[in-house]
């Protein structure tokens, strides 16, 4: 599969737009009443990030946050992505789920968690600890695209964004590099006739689109509730294989494209003021340029 670096325009796809006030059906969509067994190979990206409950502290050199000794876990949106892939396998739509992580040695723990949730095997693209911070969505997208080619995957499911950098770019870039359709911010995925019908959560409401396979999907919060790994699955996960490789083995150059200049805490919230009546409130708001 040839990789095209330039971004193509979105492919036309049948759309049903559901706004806040109601549904406008523009096209009718035929869907098969029967479940079709498919054998998709699904690649899922899982990222090891600082645990969401940890209090983040800025590093003394102000170029990043403290990560040493800090609790890390799987990016919550990636947990949702794995859960969705495993559900597709249980519905016999997917035949294999491969969990992929680009990160330091400890990323293997994250892959093991994915295996314990039901992924079949893992791929660990080892990034030296010092370079992990500088890894960008474009690098990961290139790695994913190369792995898609190698593994002959039919579907890529990623979390919509990582909670450490909030980039929200990897899924989109991966789709562009592969010249595949993308269905981002998915809150529901259904299979119809060799295509996917995906409900997307957008600012205006819910948008339902149909995408042809192969495709890239990014998981949003309400797509599903990830399962707990069970103890027997944790024990089984030990036996599942994790292939190890480096970015260079895939021909991907991970030199950074941008440089972080400064990292600082958000400004401390200032105290508010009380006003006596509505007129004063309006005046103050006008003075502050708010209205």
């Amino acid at each position, binding site marked *: 599969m040839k990789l095209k670096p330039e971004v193509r325009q979105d492919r036309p796809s049948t759309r049903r737009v559901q706004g806040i006030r109601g549904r406008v059906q523009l096209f009718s969509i035929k869907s098969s009443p029967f479940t079709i067994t498919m054998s998709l190979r699904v690649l899922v990206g899982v990222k090891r990030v600082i645990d969401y409950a940890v209090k983040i502290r800025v590093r003394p050199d102000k170029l990043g946050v403290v990560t040493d000794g800090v609790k890390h876990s799987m990016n919550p949106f990636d947990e949702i992505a794995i859960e969705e892939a495993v559900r597709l396998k249980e519905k016999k739509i997917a035949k294999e789920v491969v969990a992929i992580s680009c990160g330091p040695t400890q990323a293997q*723990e994250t892959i*093991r*968690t994915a295996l314990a949730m039901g992924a079949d095997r893992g791929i660990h693209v080892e990034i030296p600890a010092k370079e992990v911070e500088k890894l960008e969505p474009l690098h990961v997208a290139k790695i994913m695209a190369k792995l898609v080619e190698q593994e002959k995957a039919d579907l890529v499911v990623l979390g919509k964004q990582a909670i450490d950098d909030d980039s929200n770019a990897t899924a989109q870039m991966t789709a562009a590099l592969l010249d595949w359709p993308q269905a981002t911010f998915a809150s529901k995925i259904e299979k119809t006739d060799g295509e996917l019908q995906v409900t997307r959560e957008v600012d205006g409401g819910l948008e339902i689109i149909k995408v042809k396979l192969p495709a890239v999907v990014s998981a949003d919060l309400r797509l599903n509730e990830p399962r*707990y*790994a*069970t*103890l027997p699955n*944790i024990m089984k996960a*030990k036996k599942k294989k994790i292939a190890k490789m480096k970015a260079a083995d895939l021909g991907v150059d991970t030199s950074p494209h941008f440089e972080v200049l400064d990292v600082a805490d958000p400004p401390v919230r200032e105290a508010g003021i009380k006003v006596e009546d509505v007129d004063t409130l309006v005046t103050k708001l006008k003075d502050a340029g708010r209205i």
Partner: protein
Amino acid sequence: MPVMLSFSRGVLKCCNGISKFTSRLEPCVTKLGMMGLTSPHRHYVTSLNPSHGLTEEQVAIYQLATDFAVKEMLPNMAIWDEKELFPVDTMRAAAALGFGAIYASEEYGGTGLSRLDASIIFEALSKGCTSTTAYISIHNMCAWMIDHFGNSSQKEQWIPQLAAMEKFASYCLTEPGSGSDAASLSTTAKRDGSDLILNGSKAFISGGGDTDVYLVMCRTGGQGPKGISCVLVEKGTPGLSFGKKEKKVGWNSQPTRMVIFEDCRVPASNIIGSEGQGFNIAMKGLNGGRINIASCSLGAAQASIEAAVDYVKVRKQFSKPLSSFQNTQFRLAEMGTEVVASRLLVRNAAQALQDDHPDTVALCSMAKYFVTERCFQVINEALQLHGGYGYLKDYPVQQYLRDSRVHMILEGTNEVMRLLIARHILSEWK
């Protein structure tokens, strides 16, 4: 290599009969083996972070149990305590993950993990609700007793249901007249054809009245421990009734009732193990139960010290956070040390039990009395560090305190633990 050499050099000093230090590892390993030190667990470090010193798989298990505890149990622990609710659904959800029969063998549906795995699971779950976790550990103990001593038809019938917590189990040893003097129990089980007729009563039974399966130690033979058998009685059997639900200081998420037998007829095939083996079964079950209870205390202490640390960093008096006062720092230092020492004792005892070490009974007893006492003190100190707020039910520390107080009393009082350790030291130790 240098690390191993200095370790083995230290060990070699203790070995009798070694005159020459050798740089080759092999003889050191043999000597280590003689001292029972080739277990890989020796080379792990235990610390304040409960995940340290565990294998990769155990870290994943600990993480799973913690996630479950924080999401499913912690938000509810105060309500379960206040309303005295037995959280059947939450426990079944835990069982679905494999927490119902953790160290029973996989053959009939147990999870087949080790005692150490069980210890870290209970330690993690205790943060969510110590009382519920303690009941789960009792249920696990009963499942193991059936798994280890039962015959195949008993195991086939009960282990799957207990592992999934479709049915809940209770352990019935204590009576109104026999607590520490357990061997003097007086509930009788007289033969009548192919049945046993049970008469007597059991006191302080955790889960009593709400659980489905009762493992009852009763007297089938003469006086003393050798006349005791372990009999399985199902709820609903005619002649089985329950006393009133006791009102307790803590452990309120599990009901405690007297279990009363009045001409209760049970088939003799419900005897677990052989006749006269009951006391042995009860004590073997309790060895593990003691580690589990100690693990619950440890988990509660860990949660309390974490809460205290968070609190003292935030609370200010005299224009300074409490964490800047040396008294606070010294208290936290002592608490942290007690918790790490407790963790070492519990995990060591769990490993001893797993390996069937000759000192198992003494080590489990040491772990039980030391950990339950010291961790209670840690939780008490944590409450003190919270000041007045620690006394309010809005904060969880008081519940950890009330729940862990009884750990010094049940599954063998700490006084009985001292008896067992002294017996071991005075007789077989050397």
